[in-house]
């Protein structure tokens, strides 16, 4: 028996891209999702001049919010419901019988959501720039790295959360610890340093906090303790939050690899 004569097999990105393109097409056919994706960030930006606020700090706050809020409310929440819905519709199990690896199936499913997330953050950044609220960031790489790692974390966290989410509807409950708990204490709405010492320590260990800290740090040079740093000190100060972020990715990644369910419970 000879091996089948095959033309060069497609590369991994092309294989994942094929499935991701189909997922993107599905998203575009969902009008409500499209409108929401574009409308929300525009409203966020438009609300600012109406409130008559314009300071340098406001531009930074807006950008930090624009990075943190979509990661939780769009990337994380959307992907929990998507993974659960695809599992309960038996689509995931179907995909798993093909040539893509498990990780590639999960990644391809996440691609459209990640593109919308990136689009929303970009829209707000452009809005802030147009309104003249865009300060020169202290470091360009750090905020981008923070958002990228934050996005990876949200994907694996969503996959891990789907384990204990039975239906897309019950995601409203099962996502609460992250959507409400971790977000409230992330520093998005009030600085972590305003919390009592013990609670602040806990807050810094939550999954979204390091993302907020790192974006804030890169844009303004201000740590979550409120200190201003620059140069090598900036990256020195970034090590702690980066470590926390990577640890969360490792934990959620392990949980996903160990417990992710591809088919409904019978």
């Amino acid at each position: 028996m000879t091996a089948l004569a095959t033309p060069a097999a497609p590369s991994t990105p092309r294989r994942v891209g094929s499935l991701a393109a189909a997922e993107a097409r599905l998203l575009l056919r969902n009008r409500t999702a499209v409108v929401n994706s574009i409308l929300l960030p525009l409203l966020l930006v438009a609300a600012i001049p109406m409130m008559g606020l314009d300071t340098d700090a406001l531009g930074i706050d807006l950008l930090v919010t624009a990075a943190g809020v979509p990661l939780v409310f769009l990337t994380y929440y959307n992907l929990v419901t998507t993974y659960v819905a695809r599992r309960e519709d038996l689509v995931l199990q179907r995909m798993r019988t093909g040539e893509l690896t498990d990780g590639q199936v999960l990644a391809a499913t996440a691609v459209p959501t990640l593109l919308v997330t990136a689009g929303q953050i970009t829209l707000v950044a452009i809005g802030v720039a147009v309104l003249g609220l865009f300060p020169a960031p202290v470091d360009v790489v750090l905020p981008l790295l923070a958002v990228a790692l934050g996005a990876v974390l949200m994907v694996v966290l969503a996959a891990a959360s789907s384990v204990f989410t039975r239906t897309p509807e019950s995601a409203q409950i099962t996502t609460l610890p992250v959507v409400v708990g971790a977000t409230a204490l992330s520093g998005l709405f009030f600085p972590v340093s305003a919390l009592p010492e013990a609670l602040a320590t806990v807050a810094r260990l939550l999954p979204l906090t390091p993302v907020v800290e790192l974006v804030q740090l890169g844009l303004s040079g201000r740590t979550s303790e409120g200190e201003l740093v620059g140069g090598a000190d900036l990256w020195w100060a970034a090590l702690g939050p980066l470590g926390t972020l990577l640890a969360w990715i490792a934990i959620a990644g392990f949980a996903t690899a160990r417990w992710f369910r591809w088919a409904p419970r019978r």
Partner: protein
Amino acid sequence: MHPSVAPALPSPAGSPTPTPPVPVPPAVEVVDLHRRYGDFAAVRGISFEVRPGEVLALLGVNGAGKTSALEVLEGLAPASGGSVRVLGHDPRRERAAVRRHLGVLLQSSGLPGDLTVTETLQAWAGTLSAPRPVAEALDQVQLTGRAGVRVRSLSGGERRRLDLALALLGRPRVLVLDEPTTGLDPESRRTVWRLVRDLVDDGAAVVLTTHHLEEAEELADRIAVMRAGQVVLAGTREEIAETQPATIRFTLDAGAPQPPVPAAVEVVTPGPRVEWHTRALQPVLAELLAWAAANGVVLRGLQARAASLEQAFLAVANAAC
């Protein structure tokens, strides 16, 4: 006594099958497979082999363990014991080596409803190493006329055929079909049978499960009947049918003499509507006819029938464990 292990060679003893000079390695090799869910043993030590160009049908009532066994072959679940090799590899641990040659049709599976038939095939083809052209795949399952229709709007049978087209899209050398024609109309069923036969003629190895005895008779070179997680009967359809006695029926006119009962006969009803069971149909029938001719007796409505697969299946599939 039923064999618990399928014979390694498909040919019944004595048939003049030419032996190939080099033995073809089996495409699928299952040895003493066990699968447990907690305390429940769904598969309890089954073994079989399927060679290229061969179809094995797993028959059994619901809950016999057919799907649980297939999931191990598909690489979707680990075995609790025993070993499974597909093209020489472990389908779970060496998934990458197996997957590109494996076509799988799950018993029930989902496809996103808002993609069209063509888009679904294109997306799947893009993930494969050597897909067939989408147009050819559409034609195979006779969905060319429905190419632009969204999956949501397809009938159940059309969706099943699309599912099959996806399973065949990568030109698999091993095909695992879990109830491929359940819910299909008779015409679609024939389409699927023809497709499977074409693939087998091209050298594919096929394992399928079915409730339909007709399907097993039509497609399978060998059949394994499962009950409560074990193979209770295995062989060609003739071998399986032969495990049950043949039946002879006739009606005697009033006042006609009773025929002598040959030794190899079990009398089910003595008369006037006689029914005999025997494992030696030909000599018993010859004896009966000779007696009738010699005594001038008319055997009204005479029937002589070898046991059917169905009879054999019903005899074992529902028997107490």
